[in-house]
């Protein structure tokens, strides 16, 4: 799989400059994705809410569907005078919008758009996304505190309480999927959901329930729909956003819409198979690294063309095309998720602060924890990723042990293992050596 950096090394430049360019391109691409998603969702929100309320939404601005409305809003907000209230703490007031936007932007770093298309392939990607999403609350608290007005402080406090209390069930839902997949690396989770529709995580009974808990917590975490307490117009006028105007306000809103895309994207990867479409079209057409059928033909044509212009390395176009198809799948799912968020926002009234807290502590957290227990039992009854991964870890050591002379030093077994060995046949998981599988105990190791 040729990555962009290798492609760039063909340029006659010293390596460290090449790395800088590669980094810059990836950052620019991600920024474009974040901003475009915000712009598109502003337009989508207007259109969907219009349809729900029996009206047409923007139609006159640029063509029939009013698609020039978001740029028009952007220009309008650019020209608006953004004033800083007298009682405001000036430095923090200016800083707050950027913190909340950057925190949301960092989430895009770890989101894989297709099989290899991810800015930073972390093996703690899921955990990293949760950690960074938690930072967004700083921007809001600072914004609320530094605007100096009693109302915005009220809004900031409500928002902080809500976002923090909803981080816990959100983390629990992600843990459920991580247990299912055995790894925190989002690319790996996506890859495990390849193939037909029923390979997606959502078709695991426990993960299905967790999906709905995840949706609730995602709504609460991005402060939308029934949970948008901080900007509760009827009570706190506009919560912590009261004093912001002009382009600083846009940053907060860009942050919110980008967060909406990020959260629905994460949901798509964890539960709805990320870039894998319901029907494995790319596998049929052979658009993968070792192409066959149509894929092979495209590859041959592509390399024939590149050979002409002097690049002789093998550039596999088929895989690139397969990834493009995958990215379309991912974006469609994310946009569908965002549309549902908009749809819920315009039909449900707002919850009260204590009801928000009770739904979190009395409903989301218990259900999520139950699902974790459920998935644990599930992975022991029908082993899947988790077990395979652990054995993959131990396999090189086991071969090594066999090779070494059998002078087994006295070793106390670490845990009284309750698990039992499972014959190979029962395993749904393909691959792995054809030996009886070790499950979680060290006595196997000694044999």
């Amino acid at each position, binding site marked *: 799989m040729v990555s962009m*950096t290798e492609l760039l090394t063909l340029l006659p430049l*010293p*390596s*460290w400059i090449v*790395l*800088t360019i590669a980094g810059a391109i990836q950052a620019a691409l991600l920024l474009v994705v974040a901003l475009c998603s915000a712009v598109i969702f502003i337009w989508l929100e207007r259109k969907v809410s219009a349809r729900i309320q029996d009206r047409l939404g923007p139609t006159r601005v640029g063509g029939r569907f009013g698609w020039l409305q978001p740029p028009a809003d952007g220009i309008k907000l650019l020209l608006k005078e953004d004033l800083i209230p007298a009682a405001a*703490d000036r*430095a*923090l007031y200016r*800083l707050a919008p950027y913190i909340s936007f950057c925190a949301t932007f960092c989430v895009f770093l770890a989101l894989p758009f297709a099989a290899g298309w991810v800015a*930073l*392939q*972390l*093996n*703690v990607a899921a*955990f*990293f996304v*949760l*950690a*960074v999403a*938690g*930072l967004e*609350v*700083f921007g809001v*608290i*600072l914004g609320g*505190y*530094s605007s100096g007005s009693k109302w915005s*402080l009220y809004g900031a*406090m409500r928002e*902080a309480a809500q976002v*923090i209390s909803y*981080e816990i069930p959100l983390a629990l839902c992600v843990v459920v999927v991580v247990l299912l997949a055995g790894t*925190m*690396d989002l690319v790996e989770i996506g890859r495990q959901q390849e193939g037909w529709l029923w390979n997606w995580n959502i078709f695991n009974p426990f993960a299905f329930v967790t999906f709905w808990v995840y949706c609730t917590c995602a709504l609460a975490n991005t402060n939308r729909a029934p949970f948008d307490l901080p900007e509760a117009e009827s009570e706190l006028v506009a919560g912590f956003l009261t004093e912001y105007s002009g382009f600083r306000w846009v940053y907060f809103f860009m942050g919110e819409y980008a967060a909406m895309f990020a959260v629905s994207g994460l949901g798509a990867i964890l539960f709805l198979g990320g870039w894998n479409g319901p029907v494995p079209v790319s596998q049929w057409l052979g658009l993968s690294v070792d192409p066959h059928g149509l894929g092979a033909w495209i590859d041959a044509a592509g390399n024939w063309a590149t050979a002409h212009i002097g690049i002789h390395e093998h550039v596999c176009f088929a895989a690139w095309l397969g990834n493009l198809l995958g990215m379309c799948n991912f974006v469609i799912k994310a946009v569908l998720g965002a549309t549902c968020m908009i749809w819920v926002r315009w039909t449900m009234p707002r919850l009260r602060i204590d009801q928000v807290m009770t739904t979190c502590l009395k409903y989301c957290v218990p259900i999520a924890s139950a699902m974790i227990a459920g998935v644990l039992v599930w992975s022991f009854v029908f082993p899947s990723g988790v077990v395979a*991964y*652990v054995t993959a*870890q*131990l396999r*090189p*050591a086991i071969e*090594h*042990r066999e090779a*070494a002379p059998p002078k087994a*030093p006295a*070793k*106390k077994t*670490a*845990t009284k293992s309750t698990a039992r060995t499972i014959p190979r046949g029962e395993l749904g998981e393909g691959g792995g050596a054809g030996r009886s599988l070790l499950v979680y105990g*060290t006595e196997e*190791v000694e044999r």
Partner: protein
Amino acid sequence: MGPINWQTCFFFLMAAIACGAAIAVVISSNIVRMACWLVLSLAAVAGLFFLTGAEFLGAVQLMVYVGGTMVLLIFGVMLTARGPFVSMKIGAAQWVVAVIAAGALLTVLLQAAFGTFGQTQGKPIAAAGSSRELAASGNDVADAASYSPLGLGLIGVRIDRLAERDHVLRGGMSGYLLPFEIISVHLVVVLVGAAYLARARRRMVPRHWRGGEQPSGVED
């Protein structure tokens, strides 16, 4: 001049942010400004963790420390930062004494730090600095992904020691199971303590009495 090693560049950047923010915390008098500088400093430290390949630790630092503890502190600041308490200055004399003591401590630590310069020269991590390269660089760690060895270390299987032939280094195979259990018990105790300290005050206006009937004066 040689190729710029991005690894070092980012290290100096992150180190500069961390130390600069720490110094700013000491200097600034407004409690809210101090809290913000501290958040920046902790985030920079998390960046340092990521740089050295300890991704799991960096993520934990970001989530638990910056996302949890600092928000707790900011809540405390918001609750108490009323009126005069926002910025309290102390006399110059105390400053002088404190700076002298700190200076002495700093010289001792720096001397110790530079003492180790010669011995352990780390293997340069390849440019990309991500854990995949770390694995490829020949360390015989089963899998450079830092969280699974960490996790297994916590539950008592030191898989990074399995391949070790040197008898001394194979010791401690039981990993950190015992401290892990102690920590969890400790956290439960802290939770109970915090809950007791911050329990809701008894309400003069009973919750069930939501306006309407006259207050019976008895609270639940």
